[in-house]
């Protein structure tokens, strides 16, 4: 039996090596699980509303509840003007949720535990929101960095802070999701190591703890998808309505 360190589960393997020029565009296990997440989400949502009825069945209820959940979140935080961005927000939520949940299956791989994946998503949100802000308000969007109701002599101090905190958004957004997934899965592995090392006599103690931890991780998987999406909504609201 080969030994497994707590970080071995995050190693990326090339499944189908593809080399385009100097770019390594291989199909890896991360790509595989992202593809599975997208496929499952698409199949679930398509089949659920395929034979839609006035009184929803089980699967249609799942689709409707998730639709309403995201739609309410968007309406509460952005208002009616956010409606046109619903497809993106919904796709983002479902993708992160499925990646997080699929990662909890033993021996699977969690794409959201890779900073590359989460940072790519956060960068798309950040750049998109900035473009929306400039497209809607023109150069007036720069006034977003000038806090209102502040004495003028404080502005040279506050404007750089505002700009810096704006630039840190994609970093905090991506690291939050990535670190949550990384920490949760590392913790599983560490406690699984305790089970093996304590053996038959006391090994059931950490094993039962893993069970409790698993429930917490299910909550975290949903919660982090929720937090990522709601922060995207808040950023969108900032860009559309400014202050």
């Amino acid at each position, binding site marked *: 039996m080969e030994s497994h360190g707590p970080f071995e589960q995050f190693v990326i393997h090339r499944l189908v090596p593809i080399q385009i020029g100097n770019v390594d565009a291989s199909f890896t296990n991360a790509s595989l699980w992202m593809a599975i997440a997208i496929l499952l989400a698409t199949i679930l949502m398509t089949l659920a509303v395929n034979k839609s009825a006035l009184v929803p069945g089980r699967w249609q209820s799942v689709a409707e509840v998730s639709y309403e959940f995201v739609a309410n979140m968007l309406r509460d935080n952005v208002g009616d003007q956010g409606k046109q961005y619903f497809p993106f927000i919904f796709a983002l939520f479902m993708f992160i949720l499925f990646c997080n949940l699929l990662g909890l299956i033993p021996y699977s791989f969690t794409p959201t535990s890779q900073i590359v994946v989460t940072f790519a998503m956060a960068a798309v949100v950040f750049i998109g929101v900035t473009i929306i802000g400039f497209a809607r308000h023109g150069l007036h969007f720069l006034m977003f960095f000038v806090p209102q109701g502040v004495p003028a002599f404080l502005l040279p101090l506050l404007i750089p802070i505002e700009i810096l905190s704006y630039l840190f958004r994609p970093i905090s957004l991506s*690291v939050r999701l990535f*670190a949550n997934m990384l920490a949760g899965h590392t913790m599983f592995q560490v406690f699984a190591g305790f089970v093996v090392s304590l053996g038959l006599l006391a090994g059931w103690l950490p094993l039962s703890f893993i069970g409790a931890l698993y429930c917490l991780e299910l909550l975290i998987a949903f919660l982090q998808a929720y*937090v990522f999406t709601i922060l995207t909504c808040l950023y969108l609201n900032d860009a559309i309505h400014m202050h």
Partner: protein
Amino acid sequence: MDPAAAKLIGAGLATISLAGVGVGIGQIFGSFVQGALRNPAAAPKVFGNVLLGFALTEAVALYALVIAFLILFVF
């Protein structure tokens, strides 16, 4: 000092920030219970915000974890 020992000490020190996170999470849920007992009707409405605050606070703990990992494995 031996660099390996300094690394371990640094990673241990990075976890001190968990104290603040513990206070924060306790504060969030404590305040929620207090508010919920005063006005139970409003409790379901703010529970989403409670979870959001919990997740944001927990993320701070994870930044500390990331820093601990950086100290241990990158440098």
